[in-house]
Structures are given as structure tokens and as C-alpha cells.
């Protein structure tokens, strides 16, 4: 028996040791044929599976854009629904390639966690939702409230800071999953539901009577949300950044999924560089020259993605606000392709 087991044990040990040396993420992704993408467990507008299991949303579209850039096929993505608590470990351990999961860009996450933030695909801030029947008009009247939220998020810290700085007593009830927060809030365990304002609008749709609830006007924090990648793989980091920037640049240059083909014949130099008819910008990030063309063709520019998932015409009905382009009074700004 030992004769047979020994080589097995040794073989397993060697195999384990061999995987320790990891190749670049882009090579891994190309080899396996899809992008493994960590998303939330169901947040309408950002990443939400329908009853057929098709994921849609702002964060999901980032994954699709990434797949379109690499494979010229937005379907070559696999999604891992992750809780707020699991997300960073999943990315650090290599279980996923990229994490666009409405994650707030903070200093400690950017530095001590071994992560790199790609950019901001949604400028958000933390808000409060209450029952209209409470007759509360401002967050300053929330003294004594029971507050429901998620564990392991910046939200949990912000709410503590806010109530402490205003010297208002409060009680926090923190759940692991957003669905349970919604249920507990709906049952009346809490007076207040707090999370990023976009999340409040999204979760409100899941309540028994969405019309009986309102989001208070105060925004108590900055929550720049954006995709995250591991530190230490600059090639993948660059690619992830520029896929994001390409969607914003495309909107700024007026390139949409509808007109991208005719835009390819455009004489404007910046459009030519973006769409790969001039220069070798694809090579610099390890892709073909028409990487951005594929992104826009399949997924669209940032404005289209925003309108399709969270914009005024959707159920969420969120105005562009801070997420408008810099040239239109918002904060979305991408470095030029050149």
C-alpha cells in the first residue's frame, strides 16, 4: 500500500508547490477563456441576476466590457456573487480576476489590503431610508433610532461616526447579507436602513410597499465605487483601468454602440486613437488594436451603460448628478488615449 501512496503524496506536494508561481492574470484569463468576475449577491441596477440567471447591471457591464476587450465577446464572463465580507478574500486568493462590486475606494483598502482600485464607475454617498409614517424629514432627527445595515462595510463605520459626531444615541443591527437587511427593515426591526444611496434606491424595490419609504436628503459620506484588482500585476491593472476609461472617453467623444462603425471612419485623431485606426494602443495593454471598438460595439459607452442600468428611464430612476461627464458638470473624467 505505502508503495502506491507515496508517489501520490509526493506528486500532490510538487503540484501544490508548482502552482505557487503565478503567471499574469491576462494570460490566465486568456488560457481559461473567460473573466471570473466578483459581483454583489443581487443589487438591482448594479449586479442582479434575472430568473434565467442572466446578470445585468452597471458592475456587470464592466465585466462584459472587459470580456469584450479581451475576447471580442461580452458573454465570456463568469460571475461569483460575493457578500461584502467575502469579496476581498476572494480577490486576494485569486478566486476571481476582478471585483466590480460597488466597493468603496478607501485608503486602507488601496494600501494595506494589497488591492488596486481601477477607477470610479459610480460616485455615491451613504444615505438613510425611513418609513414615511415616522414623519422624519432629516437625518438629524434620527436620535434613538435602530439602524439596520450590512456587516463589514464602510457603511457600518460611517453611521457610527455620524451618530457619534452628532451626539445622537442609536443601535446598530448588522446583517451579513443585504437581503436580510431588507427583510429585517421591512419587518420593522429597524427604523432606518442605511447604505449607499444607490443601494437604498435599489433595495427599496424589494420592500413590500416601496412607496411607503423615503430616502432622507442627507448624504453623510463620499463613496467612490469602482472595480478592484490585485496588486502586483501591472499589466492586468492597466488593462482594467483602460477598459473603464475607454467607456468614458467614448461618451465624451460621442461614440456609441450604434455609431461606432461609422465613427471608425472618423477623421478626428482622438477617435481614431480610441478605435485603433491610428497608433498601437492595444499592444500596450496586451490586446488587439480594436479592443476599445469591441468594448463600445458590444457594451456601449459609459452614458449608455448608466442609462440602461440605473438611469432615469429605469426602475431605479437615478439622475446622472455627480456621475455626469466632467464637461457636463459631473465628476466622470478619463485620461485621454494618446
Amino acid at each position, binding site marked *: 500500500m505505502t508503495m502506491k501512496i507515496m508517489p501520490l503524496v509526493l506528486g500532490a506536494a510538487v503540484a501544490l508547490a508548482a502552482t505557487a508561481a503565478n503567471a499574469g492574470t491576462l494570460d490566465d484569463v486568456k488560457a481559461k477563456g473567460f473573466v471570473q468576475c466578483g459581483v454583489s449577491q443581487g443589487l438591482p441596477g448594479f449586479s442582479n441576476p434575472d430568473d434565467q440567471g442572466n446578470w445585468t447591471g452597471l458592475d456587470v457591464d464592466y465585466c462584459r466590457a472587459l470580456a469584450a476587450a479581451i475576447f471580442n465577446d461580452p458573454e465570456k464572463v463568469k460571475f461569483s456573487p460575493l457578500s461584502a465580507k467575502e469579496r476581498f478574500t476572494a480577490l486576494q486568493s485569486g478566486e476571481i480576476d476582478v471585483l466590480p462590486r460597488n466597493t468603496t475606494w478607501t485608503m486602507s483598502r488601496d494600501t494595506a489590503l494589497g488591492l488596486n482600485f481601477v477607477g470610479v464607475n459610480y460616485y455615491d454617498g451613504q444615505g438613510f431610508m425611513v418609513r414615511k409614517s415616522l414623519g422624519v424629514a432629516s437625518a438629524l432627527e434620527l436620535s434613538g433610532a435602530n439602524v439596520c445595515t450590512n456587516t463589514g462595510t464602510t457603511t457600518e463605520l460611517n453611521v457610527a461616526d455620524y451618530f457619534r459626531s452628532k451626539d445622537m444615541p442609536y443601535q446598530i443591527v448588522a446583517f*451579513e447579507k443585504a437581503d436580510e437587511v431588507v427583510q429585517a427593515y421591512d419587518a*420593522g426591526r429597524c427604523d432606518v436602513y442605511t447604505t449607499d444611496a444607490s443601494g437604498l434606491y435599489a433595495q427599496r424595490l424589494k420592500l413590500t410597499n416601496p412607496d411607503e419609504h423615503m430616502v432622507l436628503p442627507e448624504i453623510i459620506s463620499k463613496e467612490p465605487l469602482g472595480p478592484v484588482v490585485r496588486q502586483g500585476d501591472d499589466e492586468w491593472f492597466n488593462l482594467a483601468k483602460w477598459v473603464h476609461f475607454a467607456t468614458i472617453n467614448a461618451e465624451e467623444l460621442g461614440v456609441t454602440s450604434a455609431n461606432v462603425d461609422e465613427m471608425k471612419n472618423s477623421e478626428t485623431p482622438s477617435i481614431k486613437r480610441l478605435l485603433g485606426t491610428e497608433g498601437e494602443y492595444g499592444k500596450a495593454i496586451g490586446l488587439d488594436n480594436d479592443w476599445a471598438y469591441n468594448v463600445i460595439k458590444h457594451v456601449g459607452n459609459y452614458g449608455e451603460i448608466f442609462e440602461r442600468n440605473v438611469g432615469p428611464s429605469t426602475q431605479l430612476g437615478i439622475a446622472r448628478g455627480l456621475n455626469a461627464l466632467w464637461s457636463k458638470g459631473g465628476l466622470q473624467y478619463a485620461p485621454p488615449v494618446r
Partner: protein
Amino acid sequence: MAVEDARPARATDRASLVNDPKVRGAVYQILLVLALAWLIWEIIDNTRTNLEQRNMATGWGFLDETAGFGIILNLVQYSEVSSYGRALFVGFLNTLLVAGIGVFFATVIGFIVGIARLSKNWVISRIAYVYIEVLRNIPLLLQIFFWYFAVLRAVPGKREMGTIIPGFHLNIAGLRGPAPVFQEGSTATVVAFILAVALTVAVKIWAGRRQAATGEQFPVLWTAIGLIVGLPLIIFLATGMPISISYPEFKETGPILMRGFQEGTGFVLIPEFLSLLLALSLYTATFIAEIVRAGILAVSHGQTEASYALGLRPGSTLRLVIIPQAMRVIIPPLTSQYLNLTKNSSLAVAIAYPDLVSVGGTVLNQTGQAIEIIAIWMLVYLTISLLTSAFMNWYNKRMALVER
């Protein structure tokens, strides 16, 4: 093996070292140990290298940093400005609290149901049977959700009193009731109470010995009641009644969010704790009931008959003859159930009860120190489990049949 055995016995000629089964065995064992050691070293080294490569912080320094988040249930002083270490300690105590009380209730319910299951009364034994079969076969997490979400919706809202019996109120914010407030000078009463309990134990032992020696019985129960109630009462009155009772205060006016029961009046059991406790004890009790049933059935029926023949009534027979013998069979699997209950308490995270796993998860997420936090988790649960197991093994030894 069979093939090897079928070969003719090896001749006595000096086999070369390579073919000596003893040497070969030893070599393989050494190789295996070396391979294992190398594997473990490789894992540790690999982790370290990867952590460095990805610029992830390591070490225990984070335990002193400010936590910055609130915890709904804290048995010791804790606020947002406390450290991560303190937060983890609060979570640890919350785990101990729910596990300890859960073990107590599960044992009590389990014994009652287990005995009821064997009752000659058809209705009682059927009720016990249905209880066991239903609750044991539904996943625990579902039961926790049931007690939390389904029952939560059924109780009165936060701004209603929800009186069950005078002085006790159940609403969505929890179960409230009167709490004792210890003022200055109350130590003497508490000491008197502890003393009375100790005395009662002593009297019980003495009475047992006396009965064994002389056959005379001593009214232990009445003595106990007299001691435990009387002694502290006398001291309490003598020291000028230093303990008062705080009733939960209910406010119906003022800003709407400040209405309802006021914090700091009476005691409160939060619904997260109640649901988890109910689910854990009712679920574990079903297994304990089956263990108790098995234990009782393991005692030969002759013991019952012999005890009846001596003129003992069924109640005394069960208490004095059957259960002590059944305990030998019951204790080892009972230990496993206690361990299960303790470990299952980590499901608390699903319903916002701040146990060690829940609080630890938050700390993990704020600091990113996954390896350290998971090490703490493993160490704490391992320690609790080993201590429980050690205690139960000691108890088992005491209960074991003394063979001479």
C-alpha cells in the same frame, strides 16, 4: 496483500537491505513524515511570500486600533472608540453566552422530551415523537430564519408595549422585564446568597452520607428553600434594602424615534439573541432527546422490575435507578451535541447576533487581516470545544460504572 502472502515464505538467506520489509517500512514512514513537513513548510512559506508580494499587512498590531463600529449586545464595556481586540472579546463573550444558555436549555428540553418519548401515555409519546422528527430534519439555518423573520413579523411593533404578563413585554425590539439594581451595600446580600447555595450543597452531601449510614432521611428540600430564600432576605432587610427593581420604562410622547421602551431601564433580551437561542436549543434538544431515549433503553428492563419489586414508585425508579445507569451511555454522545451547539452558534451571523464570527468578520473586512482573524476563530472554537470535552470526560469518568 493477498498476492504477497501467497508467495512462498521468504528463505532465511540474507535478503538485501532493499528487500527487508522492516527497513523498507521505516524508510517509507520517514519519507512520509518528511514530505508532510515539507508540505506544511511550503504552505507557510508560500503564504508569507504571497502576502509580501501583494503588499498585504500582517501581524497582530491591528488589535489595538480603534474599531469604529457599534455592537448591539455587549456584556462588557464597549463603544465605537474601543479597539478591535475589545470588539473581538465582546463577540467571544456573546458566543459563550448563547452557547452556555443554549446548552442548558437544550439539556433540559432534551431530557424531558427523551423521557416523554418513552412514556406509556400514547399522546405524550406521540407529541415528543413528532417534535423530534420535525425539528431534527429541518436545517438549523432555516429554523433560525423562521424564529427570527417569521416570528419577528408577528410580534407588536417597536412603539407598542406588547405586554405578555404584567412587568414583561415582548415587542419587535426584544423581550423586556424588571431588572434588579444593586445599590451600595448590596454586596452582603449577594454574598449571603452565594453562601446559602454553598451551604445547601454541603447539607445535601451530608444528608446523603447520613442516609447511607443510618437510613434516616433529612428534609433537604425544605432546608434548601429556607437557606436560599431566608438567609439573603434577612441580610437584605438588615442592611436596609439596598437592592431595588428597575421596571422597563415606556414613553408614549416626545419625538417619534425616542418613543417606546427607554434604554437603561429594566432588562432587555434582543430578538437576535432570543431567536438564536430558541433555534439552537430546540434543534439540539431533539438530538439530546434521542440520546436520552437510547440511554434509557440501554438499561436492562430487569432493573426496572427489580426496583418495582423493592417497592420504589416509577418516578423514583427513573430518577434513582434508570437515569444514573443510562448516564454512562448518554454522556459521550451528549458531549458531541454540546460541541455541535457551540459551533452552530456561529450561524448567528445570518441574523445579526454579534457573535465571534460576526464581529470577527467585520474586523476582517475593516483590516483585511484574514489569516489572523481566521486563526483567532479556529483557536477560540478549538479551545472551547476541548474544554467542554475535557469537562465532559471528567464527568463521564465519575459516572462510569466502578468495577472492582
